[in-house]
């Protein structure tokens, strides 16, 4: 029997605890490409335990695809645990560096004001540009970037999301 209900594509935030060894990232990336799953963002780093790395991934898919992703990740020998944070309450942050054009003094003023509203920091300044550092939820980071677009963004880079379940209210 096959499920034929509608398939809702939902964004999921997954954290994977893996052995901190070379080749593990390739295994995970390879799994996603081989099985045709799309990664929207990926962030990898060490944890409090240097033998473990954590990867935060955002992926889109319906429930069945997510279930498969979860199982296939768990099947990799180097994967210690997979958490789908989307099910519970979690904290997530992202950091962006944005270099914006400052064609005149007025623009510069405006941009500084936008920065202060979003609690962004000015981390570099040039004759014709300002570089801002903003951190927070993806939606906030994106909102600021949106605001800055009309001034002309010369260069931008984001870390991708990192996430952690809250102490209470954890589901998975």
């Amino acid at each position, binding site marked *: *029997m*096959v*499920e*034929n209900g509608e398939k809702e594509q939902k964004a999921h935030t997954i954290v994977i605890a*893996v*052995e901190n060894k070379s*080749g593990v990232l*390739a*295994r995970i990336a*390879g*799994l996603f490409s*081989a099985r045709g799953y799309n990664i929207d963002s990926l962030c990898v780093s060490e944890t409090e335990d240097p033998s473990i790395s954590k990867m935060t991934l955002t992926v889109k898919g319906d429930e*069945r695809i997510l*279930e*498969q992703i979860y*199982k*296939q990740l*768990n*099947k990799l*020998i*180097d*994967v*210690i*645990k997979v958490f789908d944070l989307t099910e519970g309450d979690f904290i997530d942050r992202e950091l962006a560096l944005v270099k914006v054009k400052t064609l005149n003094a007025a623009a510069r003023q405006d941009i500084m004001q936008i920065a202060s509203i979003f609690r962004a920091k000015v981390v570099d300044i040039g004759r014709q540009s300002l570089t801002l550092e903003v951190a927070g939820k993806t939606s906030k980071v994106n909102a600021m970037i949106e605001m800055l677009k009309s001034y002309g963004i010369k260069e931008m880079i984001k870390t991708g999301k990192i996430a952690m379940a809250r102490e209470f209210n954890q589901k998975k």
Partner: protein
Amino acid sequence: MTGAEIMVEALKKEGVDIIFGYPGGVLLPLCDKLYDSGINVILVRHEQGAAHAADGYARSSGRVGVCMATSGPGATNLVTGIATAYMDSVPVVAITGQVATHLIGSDAFQEVDITGITRPITKHNYLIKDVKDITRTVKEAFYIAKSGRPGPVLIDLPVDVQRAEGKFEYPDEIEIRSYKPTYEGHPLQIERAWKAIKEAKRPLFLVGGGVISSGASEHLRNFVEKTGIPVVFTLMGLGSIPGDHPLALGMLGMHGTKYANYAVVESDLLIAVGCRFDDRITGKIETFAPHAKIIHIDIDPSSISKNIVVDIPIVGDAKNILSKLVENAEKLHIEAWVKKIMDWKEKHPLTYEKNGLKPQYIIEKLSGMLPDDAIICTEVGQNQMWTAQYYKFRKPRTLVTSGGLGTMGFGFPAAIGTQVANPDKIVLDIAGDGSIQMNIQELATAVYNKLPVKIIILNNRCLGMVRQWQQLFYKKRYAFTCLEDAEPDFVKLADAYGAIGYRVNSTEEFDKIIPKVLKEKEKPVLVDCWICEEENVFPMVPAGASLDQMLEGLA
């Protein structure tokens, strides 16, 4: 001790006494230590042969098969064999030589990133960079290969690590924190399953290779006999209970029996054990078992609800779970259902026209005269499907065939590995004239090692299975499938290698020669059977059609 010596000792600790392999530059330190180690290294003639032989050894014996090759081309030649083992969940450990660690990444002579290449076709793989990691790695590799859902593991061993000095300390146990296969089925799920089985009116077992690899055949048979539930098999599940058992309905799927496919279509409860709902068995997925609730017992959670949504999943070892289910088993009142199936069986048996030398005749004949423990390896194509249809496999591990990958050239080297693991049994390779030419060089291996493998070529002078599709779906345009014009003289070929060769053209000739062939104990024997060229495999569910839409013959 050198790394190579440590490797040899570690392999001994794992009980390895046979390695199928081929040497090369960066494998020399290991080869040198193996030379007088007591481990029997069987020199193949192509590394692909080594991988398939290790695979056949593993499938037929249940032990881990081991193969080795040098770096670069040696390692890449293993790839098809590793992928074949991966697709059918066979425990194989492949050892490859690698260039020295300081050269890795420099495009050195015969360097390839074999751990990168085999990442998607191994259960796990390792590149050992330090001599002190050898023992733990070997221990882990064998453990991973044979536990949980088995699979191939590759160990890449650079030449300088083979030469480095180290100590041999073999761990008694290992603990891999990130790898804990589930063996016990959840008791509540088992209870739900039993309840569903008792309530079902038209229950049916669907049995795959997991039953064989977990050693669950006895339990399955007990359960089937106590309850009276009929059984259909995937290609990999054949032999898990005897093919001539009254409740055995043969293979389902694309070339399944009509009664097996009808049973799936009408069943109201499918008890799937150790199978993965490959497209060759489901046909059109939307209409697969349309009336059935599905219980799925499998050790790999990712197999569950991957292709087919399952109602009652039970993750765990098939043997373990079936032994629990058997405890409650009792006779079910499903007489009407069984009668219906038996009527189908009578009305739609497998048939073929009996004129000339027919492949079906050959298989039936062999099935009738071989002992129950004879092991049949196959190549891929029509030869494989006729074997699956007409041979009654009566014991587990008596069919060695490439199911998932469908690798032509698998059968013969796999038969070599099978014969090595089972020196006292009769081992056959049912071959096609196309497939056998893919690893024919292994005749030298079989002759040298006095392995009396019997090769039965169902010679139709063409790539029959592909030709069948062209005949049915490509307007009889036979693109690149005719071998007739340059078919080698297989008898002379056998002779050239020092094997025995016969050619037969009729049933009488076949009947006459075969007792002599089966008696041969020293040399490989090749029987080139010139079968009727146009014969096709039926029934057939065309790709993408539902299981009950079977073609019976040519329109």
